[in-house]
């Protein structure tokens, strides 16, 4: 299957001035397009109408607990890394009504509302984000029970990935084996090349839908030189990645590390604010809230994203199981880098670094994992 796809993949080049052909084609096929935009001094994923809505010449600096944008004079449209929010906002959306009960003459009727899933194209998905989407697919679509709303939205998603040309300081996709080059799960993949006067995109197709769209674009076959230039783009990104996680035997190590002295060290810093879980593209935990209308004729259940950092996440009568900060941080990190592997076959962490950027006290998951390994008893 993968071989067929590889053989069928085309490498074409699309000039910058024709990028709106791509955008227009996708819109004409009925998709709204969500892409990075510049908003409130941050890269935000929002609906766009043309390439002029993309952040031109914008670069980001992401360090533990800090996020800054810089505008420069180059014309790069994808010269930054991951946005504060992830594509999860459009797939495993923060809140939605999942069941409705209405009092009628025949008593109580309980139903699930029909999922709302407008065809949506994601433009600018990074390799780490593709990995995150794949793991959420495993959890929400492929288990013995599935999330019907997630499936409906996912079925209507067109993915246009982008290969990173630079790495932020908090990126660690390389050691997590999730990037920087996209491998699978996309309909089209773009690599932005700026070289001298040249500004073009190497376009690679990854599905029949992608081929259909590519067929409508003024693509030229990529020359060897262009392929090399594109290769240099993601190679540059890979070379800029500085953070790493040593994944050798990590799940077993963490499973045995419940009393590792390092947890207390992190606990002294962690505020259990949950920002990491909100920014994280793989965190899937959710809660349900039931309420009724004032006249009592309609009751509903709303599913809302939840965080294992909240103290009542683990509440049962008698008290919460995880009360200390230590136990809650330990739960999150152990789930991401250990339990997830046993549960779903991959790490829960895609190496995007959002949790490091958006932690108010700059806790770095790569550093904490390394410290736990260092302090693990032999």
């Amino acid at each position, binding site marked *: *299957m993968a071989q067929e796809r590889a053989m069928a993949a085309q490498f074409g080049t699309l000039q910058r001035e024709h990028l709106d052909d791509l955008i227009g084609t996708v*819109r004409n*096929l*009925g998709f*709204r397009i969500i892409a990075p935009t510049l908003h409130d001094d941050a890269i935000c994923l929002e*609906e766009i*109408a043309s390439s002029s*809505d993309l952040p031109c010449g914008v670069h980001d600096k992401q360090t533990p607990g800090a996020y800054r944008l810089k505008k420069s004079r180059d014309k790069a449209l994808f010269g930054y890394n991951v946005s504060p929010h992830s594509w999860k906002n459009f797939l495993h959306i923060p809140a939605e009504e999942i*069941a409705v*009960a209405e009092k009628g003459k025949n*008593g*109580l009727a*309980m*139903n*699930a509302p029909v999922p709302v899933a407008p*065809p949506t194209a994601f433009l600018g998905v990074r390799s780490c984000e593709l990995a995150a989407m794949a793991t959420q697919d495993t959890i*929400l*679509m492929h*288990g*013995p*029970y*599935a999330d*019907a709303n997630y*499936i409906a939205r*996912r*079925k*209507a998603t*067109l*993915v246009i990935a982008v290969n990173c040309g630079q790495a932020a300081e908090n990126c660690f996709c390389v050691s997590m084996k999730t990037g920087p080059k996209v491998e*699978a799960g996309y309909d089209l993949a773009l690599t932005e090349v700026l070289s001298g006067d040249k500004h073009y995109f190497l376009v690679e197709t990854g*599905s*029949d*839908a992608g081929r*259909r769209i590519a067929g409508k674009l003024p693509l030229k076959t990529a020359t060897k030189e262009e392929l090399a230039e594109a290769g240099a783009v993601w190679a540059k990104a890979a070379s800029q990645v500085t953070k790493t996680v040593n994944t050798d035997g990590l799940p077993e190590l963490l*499973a045995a590390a*419940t009393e590792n002295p390092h947890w207390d060290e992190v606990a002294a810093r962690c505020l259990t604010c949950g920002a990491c879980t909100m920014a994280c593209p793989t965190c*899937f*935990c*959710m*809660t*349900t809230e*039931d*309420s*009724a209308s004032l006249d009592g004729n309609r*009751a509903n*259940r709303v*599913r809302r994203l*939840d965080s294992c950092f909240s103290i009542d*996440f683990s509440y049962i*009568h008698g008290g919460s*199981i*995880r009360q200390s900060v*230590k*136990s809650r941080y330990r*739960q999150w990190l*152990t*789930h991401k880098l*250990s*339990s997830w592997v046993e*549960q779903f076959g991959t790490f829960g962490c895609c190496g995007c670094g959002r949790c490091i950027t958006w932690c108010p006290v700059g806790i770095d998951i790569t550093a904490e994992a390394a410290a736990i390994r260092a302090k693990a008893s032999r």
Partner: protein
Amino acid sequence: MTSSPNPALTDPRILQELAVAASIPQGEAAAPSMSPLPFRVHTSRQETHDTFTLELSPASGAEKYPFKAGQFNMLYIYGVGEVPISISGDPVFPAMLIHTTRAVGAVTKAMKKLKKGDVVGVRGPFGTAWPVERALGNDVVLVAGGIGLAPLRPALYSILANREEYGSVAVLYGTRTKEDILFRRELEQWRSRLDLEVHATVDRATGSWRGNVGVVTTLIPKAPFDPHNTIAMVCGPEIMMRFTVIELMKRGLEESDIYVSMERNMKCGVGLCGHCQLGPTFICKNGPVYTYKEIKDLFRKREI
């Protein structure tokens, strides 16, 4: 900015050609699982000062509700919320859906006030079952603490329905005081059977209690079973289960022959919300019934 494209205009063919299409499950989507089915309250009975039993029947008129001993349902009270409650009825004659629970939170307190004819939403049954089949040919010992007798009762019903296929069967039951004893009349009926040993104990007694006083683990050293051919099923507060397992192992039971029923916060019951995780295991789908061997490392860890 021009307005969003009209989703009605999307070519359906393109949706089938998306990269994600290859990974969407084929055929019937996985069972819809988040809408409760309406059931009606047939009876509501007070068992003890804080525990009550509901008997429910499907509002659709379906004749029975099949389940396995040890499984639970998510019970929904209109406009209030949903909680996981073990089924405490008879899996062999499941005409009524029976749930016994303590009234300790908003939902269970609202449940306690329900009257005949009121509607309850039911999702389930979920979870793993007591090893009633695996125990065939063996001695069986059921150790229950407090409300823990309710999730074990279906296992006992199953065993009694097939009594001659088992060796000796013993029920060891401990509660705080005699006022907390559940299913008192049924316990007395069971005790009067010649083929069943029932021993009860209370942590503290008033003058009128003529039975044993002491924690339920005190009943284990002399309970009638052959440790080399016994399956034990234990249910109650986690501390109680922890010490019960120690006593059972002192008698010579293997870790893989002792079963426990674990409990954590649950919101969905179907493995999607993440709340019920106990280490890497999900209590709603990998549990609630586990062998002690499966979870022994987790059992002893604090705040896990």
